[in-house]
């Protein structure tokens, strides 16, 4: 097949995947995710475990050592059929803590320690780089089978294409819990292609070339050779290594935990994923045996391609090629996303935050996205560089298992952290470091001859015979020593060290994840200002998302507006939400920074931790009953307070009206009485002026009161018509000119967005706008007063924000500004104190809302109207 045709079919396949991912994203955005997020898709996405290394290499391995290739599938099979024990807990914790990667999970478990996050990230990147190189090599090799005139640049173009795809679909959303629907759907499609290809070639070999199952069995028996006998140590050791890898590989963690949309999907994957693996491997031995018969000189790694070609079935070979291509690309894409998340959250962002600490200004979101994109490009560049430098070839073939042993170093810290409350950060760090060092020394570096075999002349330091254990298989030797020392260091470090309060809290939350719904709080005690938190959350999650989040939280607390009480529960939820974007350690540090506390006091935390642990262990149900009672009592108290407040408000309102009416009346009466006597003419003129002004004030007050009572009674007549928002704003700005300005006000508008046509009462809407503009004119106290009018379409309506650059409204007053006579101005001269109350009533009768928008840097009001 000519090279160009091959490239063309590859490119069309990739375009097809692009389309799949794109359509999936579109459907997800439209809320149609039911099918896209089914247990089937979840199970298929797990198939990224089967890389090109297993797709092609399994046959090669079978040709060389018989059944041993099965160990790579046995480990995952055992882990998945046992999902109830380990995976269920892992997924629950991952979802509850909004974990973004395996590094994040370890960091979060051990007191949100970024050091551990960095360690896991480094191990993962080192282990995955050759693995990615291996995928590139497999694509290059399979190209070579079809087209003899292979070009130099294949691997480079594949790497660039994959980087592009991953950046496009892998960094759409920042929050890891808003999952990568497009990517997952695309890799599910690739999983189907892989399986179909493997089965098709297998069926062809068994029924097309051989004469059915019994013939195949006979051929296997005939081909059996001594080196195919099972080696007990490798058999058990590799099963263990693959079981560890399926949990610890960053890409597996990504699809298994991070992309999990529903915990019950795990139950399906528990049997369906082993079945998938079974399907991938059932024909491996037959293909190997038939391949050895047909092509005794061929490369067994490529039998899946060369057998159909030899038998003249180009179509089947093409399908097999696409299967292998799918295996390689899906692995690289997910691995790149997972590694980039880790790199970005644990290395790039902490450094950036450290550098920018004095002024965490601007949009952190953009920085996070940029750092993820760069990390993706970086990961693929590393893989490509390794491929070029290693020159491909034999050195790469064993790298899959070497990589497995590398990531298995995370296993003790992970499993220990999930089941042992006593596991500490020191233990995890010691274990990880020891294990990773031994792995590097005994397996990774020797794999490409980077270290001499004599152990610097010291007998017991020889990389393949540590402590004199000669004659072991190098892989098992490394697996054995690295994990033994890892576990020993982990246990000793944990037992000898003392955990920090945060570690104890997280330990209790992880180990007891099924015992209690909310974890023990790290935020008991003092509370940061809700508004500061909002400012920070807006920078990370984006303005609208943060406002929605805060509004929902405030509503859940029974408050109007955007500022919930910073209760410990809310802080914890917010921290997890932020953790979904920037990782647990960073999120924790940021909230700490805002909270303005050097640290949660140790005594506090100890008390909370011990209490929480006891409650969880002995009285989970009692606790829930107590909470139920507390909630009921709180609800009753609230209701009572509300009633009292209503009665008081009515009283206070009458008093207020009396005050507002009598005050101008007092001046009018006093001066008119004075004027009735003898007064000097210049005094008389002044006094008459005062009477006039106070009479106007009285009239305005009566007008407003009347207007308000009409609005409140719901008897207002609306004159609805179609009107351009721009026209209403123009009118309001012109009318507000007449307000005596404290200073000139510079107004910034967005006439493009204002072109919207509304169906509403233009006079009433203008009344609201006039009020808001006049308020800005009167009360904005900046040296150079500015008003921004921001128009945005959202939620089936339009929001118009009026944001000035003054001092804003102090937090305690924000709750009451829409109440009648709630004045901030101390002189009491400027208005009737009814303006905003009228605005609220007008917006209500127009079917919209008006609210104070905190955290915008000045006074800010948001008007919302349905479209």
């Amino acid at each position, binding site marked *: 097949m000519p090279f160009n045709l091959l490239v063309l079919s590859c490119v069309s396949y990739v375009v097809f995947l692009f389309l799949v991912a794109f359509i999936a994203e579109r459907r997800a955005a439209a809320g149609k995710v039911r099918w896209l997020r089914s247990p089937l898709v979840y199970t298929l996405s797990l198939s990224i475990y089967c890389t090109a290394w297993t797709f092609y290499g399994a046959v090669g391995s079978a040709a060389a050592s018989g*059944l041993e290739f099965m160990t790579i599938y046995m480990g995952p099979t055992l882990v998945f059929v*046992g*999902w*109830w024990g380990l995976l269920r807990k892992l997924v629950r914790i991952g979802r509850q803590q909004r974990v973004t990667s395996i590094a994040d999970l370890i960091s979060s478990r051990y007191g949100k320690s970024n050091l551990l996050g960095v360690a896991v990230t480094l191990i993962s990147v080192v282990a995955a780089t050759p693995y990615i190189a291996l995928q590139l090599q497999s694509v290059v090799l399979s190209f070579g089978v079809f087209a003899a005139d292979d070009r130099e640049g294949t691997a480079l173009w594949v790497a660039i294409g994959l980087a592009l795809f991953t950046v496009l679909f892998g960094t759409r959303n920042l929050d890891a819990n808003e999952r990568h629907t497009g990517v997952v759907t695309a890799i599910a499609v690739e999983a189907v292609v892989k399986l179909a290809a493997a089965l098709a070639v297998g069926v062809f070999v068994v029924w097309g070339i051989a004469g059915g199952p019994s013939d195949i069995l006979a051929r*296997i028996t005939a081909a*059996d050779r001594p080196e195919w006998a099972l080696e007990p140590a490798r058999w058990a050791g590799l099963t263990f290594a693959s079981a560890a890898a399926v949990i610890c590989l960053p890409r597996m963690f990504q699809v298994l935990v991070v992309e999990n949309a529903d915990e*019950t999907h795990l*139950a399906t994957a*528990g*049997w369906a994923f082993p079945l998938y693996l079974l399907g991938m491997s059932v024909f491996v031995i037959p293909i190997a045996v038939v391949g050895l018969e047909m092509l005794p000189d061929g490369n067994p790694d490529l039998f899946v391609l060369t057998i159909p070609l030899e038998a003249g079935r180009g179509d089947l070979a093409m399908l097999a090629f696409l299967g292998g291509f799918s295996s390689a690309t899906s692995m690289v894409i997910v691995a790149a996303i997972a590694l980039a998340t880790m790199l970005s959250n644990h290395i790039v962002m902490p450094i950036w935050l450290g550098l920018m600490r004095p002024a965490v200004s601007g949009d952190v979101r953009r920085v996070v996205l940029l750092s993820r994109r760069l990390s993706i490009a970086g990961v693929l560049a590393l893989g490509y560089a390794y491929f070029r430098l290693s020159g491909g070839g034999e050195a790469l073939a064993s790298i899959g298992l070497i990589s497995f042993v590398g990531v298995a170093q995370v296993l003790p810290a992970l499993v220990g952290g999930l089941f042992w409350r006593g596991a500490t950060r020191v233990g995890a760090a010691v274990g990880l470091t020891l294990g990773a060092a031994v792995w590097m020394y005994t397996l990774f570096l020797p794999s490409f001859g980077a270290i001499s075999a004599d152990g610097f002349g010291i007998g017991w330091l020889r990389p393949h015979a540590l402590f004199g254990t000669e004659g072991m298989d190098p892989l098992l030797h490394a697996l054995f020593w690295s994990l033994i020392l890892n576990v020993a260091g982990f246990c000793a470090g944990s037992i000898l060290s003392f955990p920090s309060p945060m570690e104890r809290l997280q330990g209790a939350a992880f180990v007891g994840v099924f015992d209690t719904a909310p974890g023990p709080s790290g935020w008991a005690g003092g509370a940061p200002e809700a508004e500061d938190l909002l400012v920070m959350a807006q920078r990370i999650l984006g303005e609208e998302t943060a406002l929605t989040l805060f509004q929902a939280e405030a509503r859940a607390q029974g408050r109007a507006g955007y500022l919930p009480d910073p209760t410990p529960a809310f802080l914890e939820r917010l921290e997890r939400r932020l953790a979904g974007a920037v990782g647990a350690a960073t999120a924790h540090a940021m909230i700490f920074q805002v909270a303005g506390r050097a640290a949660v006091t140790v005594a506090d935390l100890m008390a909370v931790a011990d209490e929480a642990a006891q409650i969880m262990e002995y009285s989970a149900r009692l606790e829930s009953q107590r909470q139920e009672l507390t909630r009921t009592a709180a609800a009753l108290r609230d209701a009572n307070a509300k009633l009292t407040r209503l009665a008081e408000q009515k009283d206070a309102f009458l008093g207020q009206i009396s005050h507002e009416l009598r005050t101008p009346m007092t001046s009018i009466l006093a001066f008119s009485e004075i004027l009735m006597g003898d007064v000097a003419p210049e005094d008389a003129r002044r006094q008459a002026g005062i009477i006039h002004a106070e009479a106007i004030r009285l009239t305005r007050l009566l007008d407003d009161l009347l207007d308000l009572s009409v609005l409140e009674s719901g008897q207002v007549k609306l004159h609805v018509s179609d009107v351009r928002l721009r026209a209403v704003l123009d009118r309001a700005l012109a009318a507000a000119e007449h307000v005596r300005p404290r200073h000139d006000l510079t107004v910034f508008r967005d006439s493009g967005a204002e072109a919207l046509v509304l169906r509403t009462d233009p006079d009433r809407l203008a009344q609201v706008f006039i009020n808001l503009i006049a308020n800005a004119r009167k009360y904005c106290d900046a040296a150079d007063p500015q008003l921004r009018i921001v128009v945005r379409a959202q939620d089936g309506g339009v929001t118009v924000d009026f944001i000035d650059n003054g001092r804003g409204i102090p937090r305690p007053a924000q709750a009451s500004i829409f109440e009648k006579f709630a004045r901030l101005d101390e002189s009491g001269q400027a208005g009737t104190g009814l303006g905003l109350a009228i605005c609220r009533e007008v917006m209500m009768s127009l079917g919209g809302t008006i609210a104070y928008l905190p955290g915008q840097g000045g006074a800010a009001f948001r008007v919302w109207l349905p479209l």
Partner: protein
Amino acid sequence: MKRPLFLARGPYRRRRLRDAARILPFAGAVLFLMPLLWPSRGTGLNGLYMLAVWLGLVAVAAVLRLWLGDESGPED
């Protein structure tokens, strides 16, 4: 809070099923390691045995899923 000493039939059955779900991977591991203990009977027969155990594990897991799948309650 003390746990009840005896459970009604239904909950009792569910608990034992959870036990089964926990034991399953260990049983599978033992079965996967069995070929090491037998005198060699050739790659073909060993392969068939492995596939059979594999399929059996899938089947048992699928049956357990029917019973446990929709449960996300607390650990007993």
